[in-house]
């Protein structure tokens, strides 16, 4: 989902910065607030960032014969709500733009929008919806993380189609083209990300049940039987 450095026309690159900035600023405020209100949350916050760090570094082969990577932003968005992940996701993207020549500074606004804004919000929204509809923790987490991953790549496809409409078939043709490169490749990876996020949440219910209860992931009075590993 990394749009390469310089591969968005200047005006569009600037527009994506304008769209993303408020989300990241709001996210930074939420992050500071969260840390002040719950200093003990710092470690779990770090772990959520670390999860995004690992997953976005892993390029995994897919059925389309190309490689892509998960984003890892779903976990933190489920635990700490979407805004916090906008900040952590931006840090990951900045690291990759500066050190790995992956993505770029000029396209940072667009990449932040897909991976650190839309991804986390989809994860958070799907998770809340899943729980409200009576879905279990595992099922809700799976769909939240998987759909967030997929949504990120759909947004990237749309961003590129807007910037580079097909000479013959226009925006729609370009959307289909970039969609087949990104979104299709991403389907099995999104499933993988969903499963890995479920795995981490399961482990967290064992080692950090108190944190999860405070964050509203586990119900307050009823501890899971055998909550200690």
């Amino acid at each position, binding site marked *: 989902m990394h749009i390469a450095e310089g591969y968005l026309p200047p005006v569009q690159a600037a527009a994506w910065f304008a769209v993303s900035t408020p989300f990241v600023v709001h996210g930074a405020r939420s992050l500071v607030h969260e840390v002040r209100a719950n200093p003990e949350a710092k470690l779990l916050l770090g772990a959520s960032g670390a999860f995004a760090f690992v997953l976005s570094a892993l390029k995994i082969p897919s059925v389309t014969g190309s490689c892509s990577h998960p984003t890892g932003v779903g976990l933190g968005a489920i635990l700490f709500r979407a805004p916090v992940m906008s900040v952590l996701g931006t840090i990951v993207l900045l690291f990759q733009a500066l050190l790995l020549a992956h993505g770029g500074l000029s396209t940072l606004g667009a990449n932040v929008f897909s991976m650190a804004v839309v991804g986390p919000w989809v994860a958070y929204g799907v998770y809340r919806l899943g729980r409200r509809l009576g879905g279990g923790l595992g099922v809700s987490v799976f769909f939240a993380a998987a759909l967030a991953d997929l949504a990120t790549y759909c947004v990237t496809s749309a961003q590129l189609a807007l910037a580079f409409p097909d000479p013959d078939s226009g925006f729609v043709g370009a959307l289909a083209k970039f969609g087949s*490169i990104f979104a299709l490749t991403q389907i099995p990876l999104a499933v993988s990300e969903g499963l890995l996020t479920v795995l981490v949440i399961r482990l967290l219910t064992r080692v950090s049940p108190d944190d999860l209860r405070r964050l509203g992931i586990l119900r307050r009075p009823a501890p899971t039987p055998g909550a200690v590993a």
Partner: protein
Amino acid sequence: MKRFTRTNLILLLVVVALAVAPLVLGLGRGEEPFAGADALAEEAIVASHPDYEPWFSSLYEPPSGEIESALFALQAALGAGFLGYYFGVARTRQRLRGTPEPGTTPVD
């Protein structure tokens, strides 16, 4: 094996299977099988818009593929290292609180 552990292992195995299956089935195509989707998108742009000139270039570019993969490995290692640290700390903390009886609230 406990049910909890077994489910976790199955989750992990499915992830591994999803990653390995395309390789085993030989689904890679073209000159460079399993190229990155980001690079493919770049190629598609160049193909449909040959006149487009990237107007900005990376401030720093890893000098070789080896350095680049080293930096990617570093990124993964930092993340995995911290995750491991977290689970170590959290597990120990939970243990030191004592094992609560099932159905009772652990001490806060």
